[in-house]
């Protein structure tokens, strides 16, 4: 059981009070590191599990009440493991049901000062262990955290005795809490994103500087994961940071110094183009099972050579990207970018730059109008490019909304984003099918056609493309229906009111 101390809690007095009922024997007093493993998106923690890596690669699995569920040796490859690689059958199936594909790796390292005591009754029987733990989380780019907790681990059959005595000895100055460590990480440090708070920022130039620094930090936090090839989400988050930076620069360009903007764009363009091919491969491979599901049973295995080829190409591309990210050229333009952001000052901006509220409102209005314009022009025979153009407009709208959400009234951005979710998903699915269909054809062209497996693969891809066409048509029809609803006067008015768009 975990307790958080109130301000009036007195440790010395507490130990003294406990000594009246138990014989306390110190069993541990040391500083140690707590190393928490989880997936990129903290799936274990979200399912109530805490994975802690100890000495000699022993992984302890706790529930939220700090009960040990398993302790097994883990074979780490490049600092990560997959659920399927866990030897212990029961833990393997537990982790597999939580994350069949995402790797588990170091998600947080916490410095911890631990002081543990045995609680023995008058018969010298061990009834439980009480631990005082001071934890410090200090990592570049994240805000520092420090707190002290009390952990009681009564032995079976002694829960009531130990917990009652703790309550009595603490004079009710200890409050029960769920696992505090993971909660903190889930709330503040999840998804490799540092926090961005613009609520107190009054000027546009300050907001832009902060956002660009924040996005640069976000990209940097994901770079190591791309190089280590731990999870494809590192690359995705890196690219999202780059795209958001580009969108911001594009929409604020008239207030920015052209020369400096060009310097910033040089890095962003390099980072964007260097990573795009690998991201495409990642998306195909992530959908391997989905594609196979689309195929009739007899063709399911025929598509394997195509994916084998994609895997080879992906590995080649990954090595190339690692080279690029480690190159002198990349380091130079990145340093240049970092310096340009840190040296951003008022001189960069046109003196006529608007207030932050006006900028947000005008930009969102412009983007929203574009969505309406591009959306209305669509019909069932529109080419995929027209859908893609609308998607770009939508993304720009969403990025601006997300980046400035902390400057807006609480909940305003979230509500609008939620109302656009269905449209976003449909446009995403439509675009993915377009690109993937084209790319599948090009993969086939790159394969050696003289083998029987290639002939079978052509049949399977042909079948898949037919299925993709059908899906795309269905998505387009659904999208158009949804867009009509979205454009209803009532909905438009609601969004505009929420965002104060006039």
């Amino acid at each position, binding site marked *: 059981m975990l307790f958080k101390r109130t301000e009036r809690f007195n440790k010395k007095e507490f130990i003294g009070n406990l000594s009246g009922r138990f014989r306390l024997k110190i069993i541990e007093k040391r500083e140690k590191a707590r190393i928490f493993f989880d997936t990129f998106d903290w799936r274990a923690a979200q399912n109530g599990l805490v994975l802690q890596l100890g000495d000699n690669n022993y992984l302890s699995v706790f529930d939220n009440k700090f009960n040990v569920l398993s302790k097994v040796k883990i074979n780490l490859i490049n600092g990560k493991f997959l659920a399927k690689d866990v030897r212990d059958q029961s833990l393997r199936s537990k982790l597999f049901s939580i994350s069949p594909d995402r790797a588990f790796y170091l998600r947080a390292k916490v410095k911890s000062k631990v002081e543990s005591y045995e609680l023995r009754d008058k*018969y010298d*029987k*061990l009834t439980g262990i009480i631990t005082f733990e001071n934890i410090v989380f200090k990592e570049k780019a994240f805000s520092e955290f420090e707190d002290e907790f009390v952990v009681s681990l009564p032995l079976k059959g*002694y829960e009531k005795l130990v917990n009652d005595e703790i309550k009595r000895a603490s004079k009710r100055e200890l409050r029960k809490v769920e696992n505090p460590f993971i909660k903190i990480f889930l709330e503040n440090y999840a998804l490799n994103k540092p926090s961005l708070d613009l609520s107190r920022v009054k000027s546009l130039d300050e907001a832009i500087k902060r956002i660009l620094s924040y996005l640069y930090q976000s990209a940097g936090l994901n770079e190591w994961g791309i190089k280590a090839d731990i999870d494809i989400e590192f690359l995705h988050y890196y690219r999202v940071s780059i795209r958001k930076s580009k969108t911001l620069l594009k929409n604020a360009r008239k207030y920015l110094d052209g020369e400096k903007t060009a310097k910033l764009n040089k890095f962003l363009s390099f980072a964007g183009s260097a990573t795009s091919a690998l991201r495409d491969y990642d998306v195909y491979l992530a959908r391997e099972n989905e594609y196979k599901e689309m195929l009739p049973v007899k063709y399911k295995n025929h598509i394997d050579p195509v994916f084998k080829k994609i895997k080879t190409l992906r590995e080649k591309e990954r090595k190339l990207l690692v080279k690029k990210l480690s190159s002198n050229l990349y380091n130079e333009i990145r340093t240049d970018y970092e310096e340009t952001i840190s040296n951003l000052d008022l001189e960069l901006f046109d003196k006529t730059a608007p207030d932050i509220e006006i900028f947000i409102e005008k930009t969102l209005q412009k983007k929203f109008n574009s969505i309406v314009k591009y959306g209305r022009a669509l019909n069932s025979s529109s080419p995929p490019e027209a859908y893609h153009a609308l998607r770009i407009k939508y993304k720009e709208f969403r990025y601006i909304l997300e980046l400035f959400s902390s400057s807006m009234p609480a909940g305003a951005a979230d509500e609008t984003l939620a109302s656009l979710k269905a449209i976003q998903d449909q446009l995403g699915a439509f675009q993915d099918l377009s690109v993937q269909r084209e790319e599948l054809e090009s993969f086939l062209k790159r394969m050696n056609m003289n083998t029987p497996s290639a002939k079978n693969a052509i049949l399977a891809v042909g079948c898949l493309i037919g299925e993709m066409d059908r899906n795309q048509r269905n998505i387009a029809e659904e999208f158009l229906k949804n867009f009509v609803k979205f454009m209803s006067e009532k909905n438009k008015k609601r969004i505009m009111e929420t965002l104060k768009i006039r």
Partner: protein
Amino acid sequence: MKIISIYNVKGGVGKTTAAVNLSYLCAKEGNKVLLIDFDAQASAGFYFKIKPELESKTKKILKKRSAIIKNIKATDYKNLELLPADISLRNIDIKLNSFKTQGKTLLNVLKKLDEYCDFIFIDSPPNLGVLADNLFTASDIAILPVVPSPLSINGIEVLEKYFKRKDIELKTYYFFSMVEKSKTLHRAIISAEKKRSGKYLKSEIPYSSSIEKMGVYKAPILEFAPKTEAAKAYSCLWKEIKKIL
């Protein structure tokens, strides 16, 4: 889950020390072990510093899985838990008689612990009544400590006749306990008995002051005197039992 009863119709033959040390050895191998103390003297609990329950809980325990789980207490050793004895065990035969399930009452409740633990060791009292009948039905195997003395051997013969008369098919194994090899009588009885019955295990637990010291240290012998002959003998005995299982 395997249920192992440490049983003998005769008292003072080393049932409790065997139950404590064997369950400890089993838990040390990583198995989740529950030791049930069915002896109203509560000696198993004494060796683990667990005081006996004052409240009478036997009837509840014989009825509900949740009552067993609620009353289990952890020992100071990993994976080893104890269901302590209480004073109402004196009348366990009467309580068992009150159930319609008769000889299967214990089996019915213990099989509900299948997911809770890997092994159940039962430290049984010297009894040849309803509790014994229940133990014979519920157990996968019964291990009987036998002191190489005429009275103890007589007890074994009584039991064998009882099994035959009642058609009990439980796997039973004996081992000699409190053996003093310096005594001619002990040597003669061991030799004769091992010839008479194939149920005797090879391991023999010597008469040892270390075993008596278990009551002083309140711990299994392997915790405080692991290098003694007696400790080694229990380890060998456990190895033999594992092979049978």
